[in-house]
């Protein structure tokens, strides 16, 4: 067992089960249900945006979600295995040809939209 495997085995109990989230990929528009603590109260906040990157492995895995709030781009990074990350829902499948969609940061207006993957993959289903 090499070093990385050893570290990963040590924190294996912290990982969520593999089927904890639906299968999603970069480019999808997702709803992230995140538990936030306000004083004594806890509530679920939903952050909807485009998944522009997945980073790290094992317990270090994080997702970066970008959305536009009041004409201002907002990106949030969520640790996938955080107990506070309650749920991920897929709103729309987007078609992305690269692993990190950082180019969206420079795009303005309608250019921000991504092609719907279902439409893009239609010919595969037919074949």
């Amino acid at each position, binding site marked *: 067992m090499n*070093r*990385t495997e*050893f*570290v*990963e*085995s*040590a*924190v294996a109990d*912290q990982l969520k089960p593999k089927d904890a989230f639906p299968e999603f990929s970069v480019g999808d528009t997702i709803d992230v249900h995140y*538990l936030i*603590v306000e004083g004594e109260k806890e509530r679920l906040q939903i952050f909807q945006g485009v998944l522009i990157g997945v980073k790290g492995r*094992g*317990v*270090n895995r994080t997702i970066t979600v970008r959305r536009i709030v009041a004409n201002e781009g907002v990106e949030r990074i969520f*640790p996938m*295995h*955080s*107990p*506070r990350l309650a749920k991920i829902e897929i709103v729309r499948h987007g078609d992305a040809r690269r692993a990190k969609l950082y180019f969206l940061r420079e795009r303005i207006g309608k250019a921000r939209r991504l092609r719907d993957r279902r439409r893009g993959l239609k010919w595969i289903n037919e074949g």
Partner: protein
Amino acid sequence: MPAAIMGRKVGMTRWFLEDGTNIPVTIVEAGPCVVTQVKTVETDGYAAVQFGFSDAKPRRTAMAQIGHDAKAGTVSKRVHREFRCASDDEANGFESGQVLDVSVFEGVKFVDVTGISKGKGFQGVMKRHNFRGKEATHGVKRAHRRPGSIGGHATNLGTGPKIKKGKKMPGRMGGEQVTVRSLDVIHADPKKNLLVVKGPVPGPNGCDVYVKPSIRLYKSKANKQAKA
């Protein structure tokens, strides 16, 4: 005083607490260690327990070492360390050949970890002694990271033609014994010989570290504990 133990620094990762916050942690593969000798005031002049960690190749070990460890009924160990005991009675609570593992830290909240820090090579005063250096502009010429005046004619008495002894200057940095005190024990798993402590630990991954329960917390941490 509870027992101490030797371990191997495995590496760092993150750890999620129950409330969802995540903290940086270091994973230490601690033990198992074997008690190789119990020292008492009567025989050795002081009370202590000596233990060995990590098997050594017999071919590379001196016969005296092999014999010493064989007395404890174990294969020869690569590293030997000892921890002091308050009295003979306490030292006699351990017996030679006894195995020390992470379970000795049961109920221990804070530990001190000692290791040899990473060597940094020859470094200037800003990195080595946290000097401030000089301004980037306002007429400073090629002296942005220099130490400045080293104190003209001062001796240890205050006068004389020499520089004060121990003056902080550039030089070799790192590669020395460092102890970090009062690290939180996040998780201990005697089955896997794992110890998870909060924050970094001296040395590169794979180095030997000495872990002992904290006798006294450092001040700011003690204050924090008192408040909570």
